[in-house]
């Protein structure tokens, strides 16, 4: 079966729709949860998460959210750790290309829905885009308070002192807030939220973002949201303010100094390189002629060669 074969056995975007029999109301149920999540920013809305044709941990929450909001005219981009070409991203993209026959892209600017695992794209998002996060553990208080009844009460009563205990422990042990990913944020001055395991480098991008941000946790059966242009504050102490981590080297391929970098070990002699984790960002920069120190000369795209020749002249 090829990727573009229509699949008459399936509903559009896999999930059953309200137009079918009464019991088939999965999309309606998820959309209701999403609407509620948008109405109460940062609040974890329970939903009846379904079995998906992929294992938990592969983005079943994000897939259900994407399936519920996807329309025939949408253009879908899927990234995993910033990359479009990793297993998780490729298989989810193929899944929707097959079950919804929507257009897919790797270009951030062209996408209307971006499903992501562990990153926010480097390119600035716009008001006509939706960012869907895959969330493994939605409860930011979980590791300090294992009881769900208790954490729910704490959310209801805004008792968030415990979140600072975690940051206190970081400073006591490491001298600074060592939490580097899944860094807790407070949304719209009310709910404290786990932004999923994105690096804290990405935290400032959530604040006042023009795009709608949706979070789906399949195994934990929770959906939450940040509506466009919502205040998102990373928790910190007065004498240990939130700091965005910086890299002291540029991307080895595109020379970017403002992007989140992955460290890649290149040999067993201690050789390593830092490259953009956002592959689309890196590629589009290279297409514009930016070059890092370790970018190979060949093969060069004809368009690049032409522009390089023009630049040389």
């Amino acid at each position, binding site marked *: 079966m090829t990727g573009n074969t229509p699949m008459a056995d399936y509903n559009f975007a896999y999930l059953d729709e309200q137009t079918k029999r009464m019991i088939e109301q999965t999309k309606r149920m998820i959309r209701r949860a999403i609407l509620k999540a948008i109405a109460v920013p940062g609040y974890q809305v329970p939903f009846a998460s379904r079995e998906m044709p992929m294992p938990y941990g592969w983005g079943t929450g994000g897939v259900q959210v994407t399936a519920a909001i996807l329309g025939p005219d949408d253009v879908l981009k899927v990234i995993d750790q910033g990359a479009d070409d990793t297993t998780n991203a490729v298989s989810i993209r193929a899944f929707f290309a097959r079950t919804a026959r929507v257009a897919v892209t790797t270009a951030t600017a062209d996408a209307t829905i971006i499903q992501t695992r562990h990153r926010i794209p480097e390119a600035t998002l716009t008001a006509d885009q939706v960012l869907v996060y895959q969330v493994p553990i939605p409860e930011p208080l979980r590791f*300090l308070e294992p009881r769900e009844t208790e954490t729910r*009460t704490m959310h209801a*009563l805004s*008792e968030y*002192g*415990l979140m*600072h*205990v975690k940051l*206190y*422990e970081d*400073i*006591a*042990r490491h001298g600074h807030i060592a939490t580097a990913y899944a860094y807790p944020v407070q949304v719209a001055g009310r709910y404290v939220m786990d932004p999923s395991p994105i690096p804290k480098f990405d935290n400032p991008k959530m604040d006042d973002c023009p795009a709608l941000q949706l979070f789906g946790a399949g195994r934990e059966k929770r959906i939450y949201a940040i509506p466009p242009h919502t205040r998102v504050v990373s928790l910190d*102490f*007065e*004498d*240990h303010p939130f700091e965005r981590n910086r890299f002291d080297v540029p991307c080895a391929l595109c020379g970017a100094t403002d992007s989140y970098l992955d460290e890649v070990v290149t040999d067993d002699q201690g050789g390593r390189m830092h490259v953009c984790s956002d592959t689309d960002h890196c590629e589009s920069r290279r297409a514009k002629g930016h070059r890092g120190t370790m970018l190979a000369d060949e093969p060069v795209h004809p368009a690049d060669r032409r522009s390089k020749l023009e630049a040389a002249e």
Partner: protein
Amino acid sequence: MNANTPAPLLEARSLSKSYGGRPACRQVSLSLDAGEVLAIVGESGSGKSTLLNLLSGRLVPDTGSIRYRMRDGVARDLARMPEAERRLLARTDWGFVHQDAALGLRMNVSAGGNIGERLMAVGGRHYGDIRATAANWLTRVEIAVDRIDDKPTAYSGGMRQRLQIARNLVTSPRLVFMDEPTGGLDVSVQARLLDLIRGLVADLGLAVVLVTHDLAVARLLSHRIIVMKEGHVIESGLTDRVLDDPQAPYTQLLVSSVLAA
């Protein structure tokens, strides 16, 4: 109520609680003044822990009411207080010291974090201040300040108990509930802990409701005693009076059994 006799800090009326038809606490009434230490004694199963849990709001009574005089001087019915307010009260104006320190501490959080939790819960957002306060409290409960970043799992039983006390007292509560605070500790550690508790209670003017089966602990710490048996209060009065001149036959038995030992 005139100005010369201030209203009690805590006042319970006709508290009853049954577990599945089995009464654990029957029609218990008591009152506690500010700065007063009240010991609840009795044998295992006499209902003293149930009573403590009722008073501290950890259990809901089947019948009866509990009134607590807030810092503004107004006595409030705890059952009618919103949950948010009750929880705030429990972690600012009250303390609860468990027999098993693991229940009262966060065992996977350092000593400093354990003490600082209440401060952060009421809005403390300055790391340096929180840490300084935690270090100060460690000193007050006789724990070396260089143990501030150790987890309670690395502490001895006596140290855990002292840490638990510091964690509760950091917000300057007016009322502390203690459930067998010296249970399970060896005699010399017990003596030191009792000494510490007595000193802190006197310094801070704390009111304490203390549950113990050890009459020596009750004699050392408390001003007043109530004796429970099968869910009833069978005798109450000043500690010295009850222990030196017990009236009820059961209390006489209890006191004589200690002296004989």
